[in-house]
C-alpha cells in the first residue's frame, strides 16, 4: 500500500507552523503567569519548563520548516549541512526538558514546602491575623470601653467640677495646713494656692479665723479622730472683710484609706446672721414698742388662745405673759357691760366674723384677775399673713376710768364754767349796782355825825355792801380765776367774817385763838376769804351732827421747826383750822387738794383745789392732817407783809384836795358808777370830767391837752363792753401825754391788769365797788 507523502509534508509544515505559534503563545502565557507571582516556585518551574519546551518546539519547527523548504527547493545539501545543528539544539532541549522533568519533584517539594510554609504562614498569619483581629477587636472594645470610661470620667469630672463650682466654697487642706485644692467659689473668696515663691500657702495665713492655732481647729479635731466637724467661724477674706461661715470638715483619705488632709466646706452665713441680728433687733424694737405702748395689747390665734400680752395688759388683766399664753382669751380678758353687768361677747369672735377692725362696745369694764374693775376702751383687728389670711387677732385696750372721771368732771367744770360765766356776768352788773349803793351809803354816812343811830345803820349797811362786794369778788374769782390783788391786811377779821358767814344758822361752834399782835399779811382779801370759807365749809360738812371748829393763829419765825419747809428768810403767819368731824381716810388724804377730788357726792371737788391754788399764789403753804373718826386739821402759812400797819379807813373825813390836783376824769360805762364816783370826787374837792368809754376819754384828754387845760388824773374802768376799755385807752393817753396819771378801776380784782397795773401804764388800781376812802387813798398813792 502506498500512502501519499503530501500529508506528511503538509502535516509537517502546517504542524510546525501551528506548533511554532502555540509554542510562542505558551511562552508568553507562561512568562506572564510567572511574572504575576515571581516568587512562586511552581510557576517559575512551569515557566522554565515551558520555555524549554517552547525552545524545543521552535527549534524543531523551525528546523522542519527549513528542511521542507530546502528539500522543496532541491537543496538537500544545505539541509544536510545545517541539520546537525538543528538536531543538536533539539537534543539539547531534550536534555533540559529531561532535567526539568526529573527534578520536578524537587521543585514540587520546594514548592510544596514553600506552599506549606506559605500556607502555614498564611494560616499562622491568618491565625495571627485572627488573633490580631480579635485582639484588635478586643483592643477596640477595650479602647472603646476605655474611651467610654474616659468619656464617662470626663463627664463625671465635668459634672463634678460643675457641682463643686456651683456649691459653697470647698477646699482640701493637707495635714501641714497647706491648701491643696479648692473650688471656684473658694478661690473667689481666698484666691491663690501659692505664695510669691511658689510655695503652697498655709490655711491659717490665707483665711485666718477664730479657731486657728487652737485645739478647736477643724484639722486638729479631725486628726484626733472626729469624723465630722461643724463650727460657726468668723474668717477674714482676702480683701480684709470679716464674714461669718459655718465651716464643716471631713477627713480626706487617699486610695489606701490613709488620712492625708481634710475637706472643708464654707457656708457664708453673714447675711443670715445679719438678718438674725436685724430680726432680733426688730423683735426687740417691737417688744420695746409693745412694752412702751401705753395701751394694753393682747394677741390671740384664730382659736382665741392668747399668744402674747404686753406689760400694760399684764398690769390691767393681772395675768403675766407666761401665765396667759395658751389660755382662752375670755379667761384672761374678762369683760362685762358696766350697766347690765353681763359678760361681753368674745372680741375675737367679733373680729373673726367681720374680718375688719372693730371698736368694741362702750361701757365695757375689765375685771382683772384680782377682781379690780376698770372701765376700758378697746378695739380688735385681725392679724393677716402675707397671703391676707387671718392668722390671729390683736386687741388693744386702755384703762379709761380716769378719763371717764375726767370727762365727767370736765362736763361738770364746763357746767361750772357756764355757771361761772353767768355768775361773772351777774357779778359784774351786780358790782356796778353795789358801787352805786356803797358809794351813796359812803357819801351819806359822811353827812351824818358819828355815833348817831343812822350813822351806825349806815355803817352796817356799808359793811353789808362790803360783804356783798366780797361775795361778788368770790364769784368773779370763781368765774375767771386770776392773780391775787394783794394788800397788807389783818387776817383775823377775814377769818371771823368768813367763818360767821358760813356758819350762820349752823349748830357748829367756832372758837378762835388769835393773838392781838398777829402780823399783817399780804393777801387778796377776797381770795383769802374764799379760802377760809372753803375750809370752814369742809369742817362743817365733816360734822353733820354739829361740833366745834377751832381756829387759831400765830406768828411763825423762821426755823421754828414747822412741819413744812418754810423759807428761813421769811416770816409767816400760821393759821390752823381744826374740826372734830369724821376725818379723812389715810388713802385719800394725799388727794384732797386734787381738782375734782371729793368724798362728798354733791361736792365739786374744786374747793380745796382753789384753796390750795390761792395759798400757792400767795407764796404760802398748806397742809392737812386727819385721823378718821377724830377730825381734820388744815394748817396754812402766809408770808408776813412788809407793811405792818393797816391804814384804817372810813373816818368819813373830807380832806382837802391834794394840792395841785384839780381835774379828774372818770371813765365808766355804767352811769351810776360815774355819778357816784363824781360825787365822791366832788366831795373830795375835785373837778370831775366824765366819759362813758375809752374813745370819749381820749378825745376829752386830747382836747384838754390842746386847750392847755390839764387833766391831772384819769380813773378808767378796765373793761367797757362794746367799746374801748381802760387798757387800750391808757396807751393813747400816754401817747398824748407820757406823764399822764391813769388809775384802772375794775370789779375783776383778780384781773392780771389789776394785779400788775404798772406794766400796762397805770399808776394805781382800785377795785370796784370802792368807798370814798379807797378813792382818796388811791389818789394819794398816785401822787404820793
Amino acid at each position, binding site marked *: *500500500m502506498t500512502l501519499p*507523502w503530501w500529508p*506528511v*509534508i503538509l502535516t509537517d509544515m502546517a504542524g510546525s507552523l*501551528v*506548533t511554532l505559534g502555540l509554542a510562542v503563545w505558551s511562552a508568553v502565557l507562561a512568562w506572564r*503567569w510567572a511574572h504575576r507571582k515571581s516568587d512562586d516556585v511552581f510557576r517559575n518551574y512551569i515557566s522554565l519548563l515551558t520555555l524549554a519546551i517552547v525552545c524545543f518546539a521552535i527549534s524543531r519547527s523551525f*528546523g522542519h520548516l527549513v528542511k521542507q523548504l530546502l528539500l522543496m527547493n532541491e537543496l538537500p545539501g544545505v539541509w544536510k549541512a545545517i541539520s546537525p545543528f538543528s*538536531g543538536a539544539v533539539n537534543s539539547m532541549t531534550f536534555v533540559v526538558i529531561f532535567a526539568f522533568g526529573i527534578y520536578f519533584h524537587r521543585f514540587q517539594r520546594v514548592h510544596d514546602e514553600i506552599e506549606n510554609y506559605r500556607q502555614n504562614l498564611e494560616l499562622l498569619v491568618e491565625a495571627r491575623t485572627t488573633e490580631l483581629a480579635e485582639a484588635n477587636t478586643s483592643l477596640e472594645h477595650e479602647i472603646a470601653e476605655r474611651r467610654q470610661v474616659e468619656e464617662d470620667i470626663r463627664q463625671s469630672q465635668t459634672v463634678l467640677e460643675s457641682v463643686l463650682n456651683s456649691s459653697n466654697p470647698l477646699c482640701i487642706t493637707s495635714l501641714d495646713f497647706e491648701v491643696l485644692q479648692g473650688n471656684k467659689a473658694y478661690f473667689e473668696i481666698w484666691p491663690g494656692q501659692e505664695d510669691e515663691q511658689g510655695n503652697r500657702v498655709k490655711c491659717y495665713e490665707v483665711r485666718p479665723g477664730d479657731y486657728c492655732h487652737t485645739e478647736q481647729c477643724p484639722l486638729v479635731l479631725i486628726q484626733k479622730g472626729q469624723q465630722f466637724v461643724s463650727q460657726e467661724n468668723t474668717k477674714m477674706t482676702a480683701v480684709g472683710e470679716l464674714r461669718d461661715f459655718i465651716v464643716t470638715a471631713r477627713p480626706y483619705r487617699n486610695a489606701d484609706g490613709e488620712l492625708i488632709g481634710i475637706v472643708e466646706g464654707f457656708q457664708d452665713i453673714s447675711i443670715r446672721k445679719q438678718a438674725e441680728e436685724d430680726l432680733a433687733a426688730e423683735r426687740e424694737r417691737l417688744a420695746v414698742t409693745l412694752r412702751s405702748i401705753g395701751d394694753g395689747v393682747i394677741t390671740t390665734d384664730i382659736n382665741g388662745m392668747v399668744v402674747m400680752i404686753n406689760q400694760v395688759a399684764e398690769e390691767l388683766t393681772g395675768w403675766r405673759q407666761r401665765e396667759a399664753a395658751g389660755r382662752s382669751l375670755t379667761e384672761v380678758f374678762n369683760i362685762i357691760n358696766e350697766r347690765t353687768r353681763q359678760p361681753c361677747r368674745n372680741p375675737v369672735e367679733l373680729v373673726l366674723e367681720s374680718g375688719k377692725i372693730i371698736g368694741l362696745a362702750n361701757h365695757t369694764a375689765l375685771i382683772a384677775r384680782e377682781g379690780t374693775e376698770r372701765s376700758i376702751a378697746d378695739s380688735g383687728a385681725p392679724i393677716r399673713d402675707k397671703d391676707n389670711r387671718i392668722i390671729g387677732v390683736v386687741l388693744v385696750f386702755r384703762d379709761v376710768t380716769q378719763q371717764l372721771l375726767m370727762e365727767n368732771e370736765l362736763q361738770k367744770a364746763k357746767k361750772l364754767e357756764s355757771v361761772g360765766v353767768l355768775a361773772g356776768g351777774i357779778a359784774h352788773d351786780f358790782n356796778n349796782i353795789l358801787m352805786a349803793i356803797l358809794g351813796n351809803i359812803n357819801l351819806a354816812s359822811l353827812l351824818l355825825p358819828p355815833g348817831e343811830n343812822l350813822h351806825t345803820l349806815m355803817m352796817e349797811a356799808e359793811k353789808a355792801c362790803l360783804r356783798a362786794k366780797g361775795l361778788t369778788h368770790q364769784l368773779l374769782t370763781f368765774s375767771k380765776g386770776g392773780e391775787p390783788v394783794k394788800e397788807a391786811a389783818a387776817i383775823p377779821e377775814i377769818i371771823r367774817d368768813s367763818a360767821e358767814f358760813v356758819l350762820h344758822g349752823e349748830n357748829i361752834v367756832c372758837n378762835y385763838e388769835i393773838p392781838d399782835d398777829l402780823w399783817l399779811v399780804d393777801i387778796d382779801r377776797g381770795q383769802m376769804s374764799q379760802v377760809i370759807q372753803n375750809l370752814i365749809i369742809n369742817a362743817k360738812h365733816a360734822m353733820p351732827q354739829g361740833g366745834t371748829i377751832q381756829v387759831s393763829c400765830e406768828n411763825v419765825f423762821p426755823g421754828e421747826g414747822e412741819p413744812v419747809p418754810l423759807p428761813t428768810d421769811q416770816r409767816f403767819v400760821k393759821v390752823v383750822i381744826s374740826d372734830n368731824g369724821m376725818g379723812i381716810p389715810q388713802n385719800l388724804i394725799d388727794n384732797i387738794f386734787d381738782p375734782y377730788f371729793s368724798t362728798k357726792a354733791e361736792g365739786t371737788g374744786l374747793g380745796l383745789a382753789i384753796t390750795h391754788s390761792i395759798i400757792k399764789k400767795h407764796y404760802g403753804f398748806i397742809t392737812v392732817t386727819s385721823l378718821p373718826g377724830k377730825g381734820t386739821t388744815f394748817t396754812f402759812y402766809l408770808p408776813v407783809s412788809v407793811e405792818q400797819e393797816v391804814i384804817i379807813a372810813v373816818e368819813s373825813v373830807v380832806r382837802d384836795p391834794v394840792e395841785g390836783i384839780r381835774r379828774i376824769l372818770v371813765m365808766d360805762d355804767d352811769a351810776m358808777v360815774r355819778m357816784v364816783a363824781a360825787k365822791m370826787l366832788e366831795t373830795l374837792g375835785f373837778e370831775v370830767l366824765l366819759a362813758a368809754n375809752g374813745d370819749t376819754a381820749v378825745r376829752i384828754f386830747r382836747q384838754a391837752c390842746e386847750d392847755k387845760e390839764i387833766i391831772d388824773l384819769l380813773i378808767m374802768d378796765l373793761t367797757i363792753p362794746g367799746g374801748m376799755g381802760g387798757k387800750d385807752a391808757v396807751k393813747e393817753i400816754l401817747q398824748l401825754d407820757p406823764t399822764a396819771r391813769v388809775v384802772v378801776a375794775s370789779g375783776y380784782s383778780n384781773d392780771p391788769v389789776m394785779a400788775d397795773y404798772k406794766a400796762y401804764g397805770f399808776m394805781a388800781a382800785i377795785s370796784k365797788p370802792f368807798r370814798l376812802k379807797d378813792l382818796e387813798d388811791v389818789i394819794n398813792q398816785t401822787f404820793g
Partner: protein
Amino acid sequence: MGRGLLNKSLIVAGVLSLLIGPGVVPAMAVQAHGGSEGLVAHQIGHLLFIIGMGYLLLRSLYLRLNTQGWPYFKGFLAFILSWNLLTFTGHWLNESVDPGKYLKVDGQLAGFTVNGFTDLIFYFSRLDHLLLVPAFVLLLMALKRWRSVP
C-alpha cells in the same frame, strides 16, 4: 528519596528495553538528524525527554495533581510522551526503512509504500505533528487555566 531513584531506574530501563528490543535500523538521508550528531545521541535525547516527561507525568499522577491546569498539563505530558515515543520509534524505524519504499515523482517524495506494521508506524511517525500540536494545545490550555486562577 531512594524509592524515587529506583522508580527512575525502572523507567530508564524500560525505555532502553524498547530501544534495544526492536533492533537497530540503518540511518537514511531523509532522516532528521545527520550523521555527525548521530541517531543514538538524538534517541538518547528522546529517551531523556521521555524519561523526564514520563517522570513528571507519573509524579503528577502520584501526587494527584488534578486541580487548575494540571489536567491539561497532564494531557500535554501524555501527548508529548506519545509524540516522543512515536518520534523515537520513527527515528528508529527510519534507520531500517528501505529507501525504495519512498515514491518520488519528479524528484519529489510523493508517497510511501507500506508493506507492514512497522512501515505503517513509520509512516504515522512522519505525521508526528498530529500528536505534537495537540500537546501544545493542551500545554497552552494548561497555562491559560493556571493563569486564569486568581
